[in-house]
């Protein structure tokens, strides 16, 4: 075989990594992530649309538990009925809050449902079939985090917590026994009027549900594209030695993976597959932190959360979530390292 056919290397050429090769590799990783994630996104949107069609929201929201622990737990359990990634959960949480659902229940759903739903649990299982501790720790951590965040945010009055437009809508659907007359700018005065609102929301036409689902898919696909682009760039350009150095340090690895989760902003339905790329290099606590913090706080979500919460409440959510995940990640490292 001739030297030319083998492409024999010169001394310099063998070690030189061209920019074009980097771009080509990043582009291939981007396509891999995107093509793999889109079907999961489609499944999530399809199930959410089906749930919207079969059980359209209504008065049932106001009957959800108000107990400070039972409420968030119920909200978290709703994730099994309305499975979607964190982007899909925001409009559902807004609907719950606007419909007069108890605050703790709606917040429990918002923060826990992105992890506690069949799609995310299945994808975590597919990605890490041999790590039983993670299959228990991820939903457990998400549940704990949602309880903590719901408890912290309930300390704020609703006027300091909720977006003004949402608050106004919510006031209209809360009974007068709960809301003072001066807190409403519009609405009916007097006793509750059961006949004023229909007892049961009519089932929307299938065509409308399909249209809504299609729009939701396309909106989320764009966010997925951005997330995959950032993830592919980071994966291609991040020096291996940097990750390995960080991976060995328990606290630093948790902090760095928390930062990565916030920056990468990948949907919870596919983040387990992304974490596979780092899993062997980082501590178990860091892996946990990546999979639990990302669905609650990330750059992509911050814009979406503005339709629910005031900026101060978003800052409080981010800070509380970061501290809690850091402590839990450290605890897991203590147990497993």
């Amino acid at each position, binding site marked *: *075989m001739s030297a030319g056919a083998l492409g*024999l*290397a010169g001394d310099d*050429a063998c070690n030189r990594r061209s920019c074009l090769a980097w771009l080509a590799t990043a582009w291939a990783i981007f396509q891999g*992530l995107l*093509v793999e994630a889109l079907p999961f996104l489609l499944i999530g949107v399809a199930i959410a649309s089906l749930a919207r069609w079969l059980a359209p929201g209504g008065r049932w929201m106001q009957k959800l538990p108000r107990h400070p622990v039972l409420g968030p737990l119920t909200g978290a359990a709703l994730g099994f009925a309305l499975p979607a990634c964190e982007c899909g959960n925001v409009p559902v949480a807004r609907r719950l809050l606007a419909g007069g659902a108890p605050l703790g229940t709606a917040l429990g759903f918002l923060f826990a449902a992105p992890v506690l739903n069949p799609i995310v649990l299945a994808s975590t299982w597919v990605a890490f079939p041999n790590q039983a501790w993670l299959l228990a720790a991820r939903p457990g951590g998400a549940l704990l985090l949602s309880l903590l965040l719901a408890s912290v945010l309930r300390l704020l009055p609703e006027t300091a917590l909720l977006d003004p437009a949402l608050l106004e809508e919510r006031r209209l659907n809360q009974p007068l026994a709960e809301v003072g007359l001066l807190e409403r700018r519009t609405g009916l005065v007097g006793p509750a009027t059961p006949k004023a609102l229909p007892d049961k929301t009519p089932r929307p036409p299938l065509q409308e549900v399909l249209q809504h689902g299609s729009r939701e898919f396309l909106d989320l*696909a764009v966010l997925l594209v951005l997330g995959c682009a950032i993830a592919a760039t980071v994966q291609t350009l991040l020096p291996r030695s940097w990750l390995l150095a960080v991976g060995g340090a328990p606290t630093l690895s948790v902090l760095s993976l928390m930062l990565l989760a916030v920056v990468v902003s990948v949907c919870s339905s596919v983040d387990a597959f992304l974490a596979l790329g780092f899993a062997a290099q980082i501590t178990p606590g860091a892996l946990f932190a990546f999979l639990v913090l990302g669905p609650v706080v990330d750059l992509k979500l911050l814009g979406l959360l503005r339709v629910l919460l005031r900026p101060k409440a978003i800052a409080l959510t981010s800070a509380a979530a970061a501290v809690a995940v850091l402590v839990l990640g450290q605890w897991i490292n203590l147990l497993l390292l």
Partner: protein
Amino acid sequence: MTALCLALWGIVLLGSSLSGRLDLLLRGVFHPLVGFSGVVLLVLAGAQLKGAWGQGLRPGAPRGWWLGAAVALLVLAIPPNPSFSDLATNRPTELGQEEALNFLLPPAQRSLTDWVRLLRSQPDPSLYEGDPVRISGFVWPQKGDQPQLARLLVRCCLADATPVGLPVRWPPGQVPKADRWLAVRGTMAVEEHDGQKRSVVVAERIAAIPRPRRPLEP
């Protein structure tokens, strides 16, 4: 616009599935899901188009959808062509616990991945000295050492690719370039490396080969 964007993403998924592009991106178990999702998106696009036909033109689409459509077109236009050696260099080399060997093939029938798994489960180099070797893989440069012949293992997609490589003693003056796909025939030998004995493939016949249709291994 909704129908057009859905159709574009559907073509991306179904086209990737039919063209064999997925072999370079994803593990085989996900291929049917990707193809099916493409069909669903195309059907959905058809339904949207049918619905929109009777309603006339609708207001413009969100700006983000245009970005999505542009990316979908780019994905269709520019196929993936990763540098396997770059990917391998940025990845850890640890294999999972599930990689334990169930049975052994005769030496000449072992693939590169079989050899790596065998050497990791029974790392005594003297056990394999003189065994015939017939392997193929891409050239993976090593710092301070000769390039190895390597393969990428995936559990899901390229993002989690893990390299496995075998040291090769190349014929004098014939050190190959990174990323070249080669078929190597030779014998297994023992050599000292960093004060430790290790198995090395002594290359006797080297042939350049095209990248395999399914370059990723499970």
